[in-house]
């Protein structure tokens, strides 16, 4: 499947953009997903298509942690469940969606935010700290650079 270009939409045009897409025949609301881009910004992406799947459109919006984006339920009722999921997993707030009840998890921070520590990261030190062949206790010449998604404060085990 070849995905269409993704249009970046401002918050005040988020609903009208989707109404326009629906009214031009893209009546199937396929998905809405959220990705934590880091620096307190979450990206929300939607994919809508025509019933015969010949035409598609993707839209994206960036939302800062303390901001809300308007809900799409008045245009696409099917968006309700996806928004509830994005609220549950990424903590995105959708203004106008009256049913953002907990779906799977009530974790704080929500599990798909990059600040959320997975359990092994809290319980143990980063295995990447080990230097092959080093004499135990010897001073390390250089500290390995953590990869993206590994927070500095987790490196030695978050609970210490």
């Amino acid at each position, binding site marked *: 499947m070849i995905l269409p270009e993704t249009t970046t939409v401002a918050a005040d045009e988020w609903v009208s953009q989707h109404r326009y897409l629906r009214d031009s025949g893209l009546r199937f609301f396929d998905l809405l997903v959220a990705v934590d881009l880091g620096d307190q910004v979450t990206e929300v992406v939607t994919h809508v298509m025509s019933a015969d799947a010949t035409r598609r459109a993707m839209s994206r919006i960036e939302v800062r942690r303390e901001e809300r984006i308007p809900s799409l339920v008045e245009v696409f009722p099917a968006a309700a469940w996806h928004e509830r999921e994005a609220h549950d997993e990424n903590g995105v707030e959708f203004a106008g969606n009256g049913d953002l009840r907990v779906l799977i998890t009530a974790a704080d921070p929500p599990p798909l935010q990059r600040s959320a520590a*997975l359990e*092994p*990261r809290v319980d*143990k030190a*980063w*295995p*990447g700290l*080990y*230097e*092959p*062949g*080093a004499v135990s206790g010897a001073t390390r010449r250089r500290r*390995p650079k*953590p*990869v993206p*998604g590994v927070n500095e404060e987790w490196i030695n085990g978050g609970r210490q």
Partner: protein
Amino acid sequence: MTAGAPRRRRGSIELDAAKCTSCMICVRECPVWCIELVADKTHDPNAGPRGRSTLELTDFRIDYGLCMDCGICIDVCPTDALAWLPVSVSSAAAASTLNTDLV
């Protein structure tokens, strides 16, 4: 090879210890921190003017209780020492028993 299984099925991960240089790249890139590696260093003072150090891999553990089959370790390995093995990890009564030494 399991009969009928697609060749690159994500069953479990195979390590070719002879190819592994203990570079730690896979250990550091694994998103769920489930790889642990131990390597011993031996120094031969008679090889060359300053001697030569070699690393010998003694332990390469993947905790299949945590591994999510993402394949990042396989993708990042510079020596292609890791590969998919189309054999699934059996279920176990205790998660701790899924921590498997591949060496």
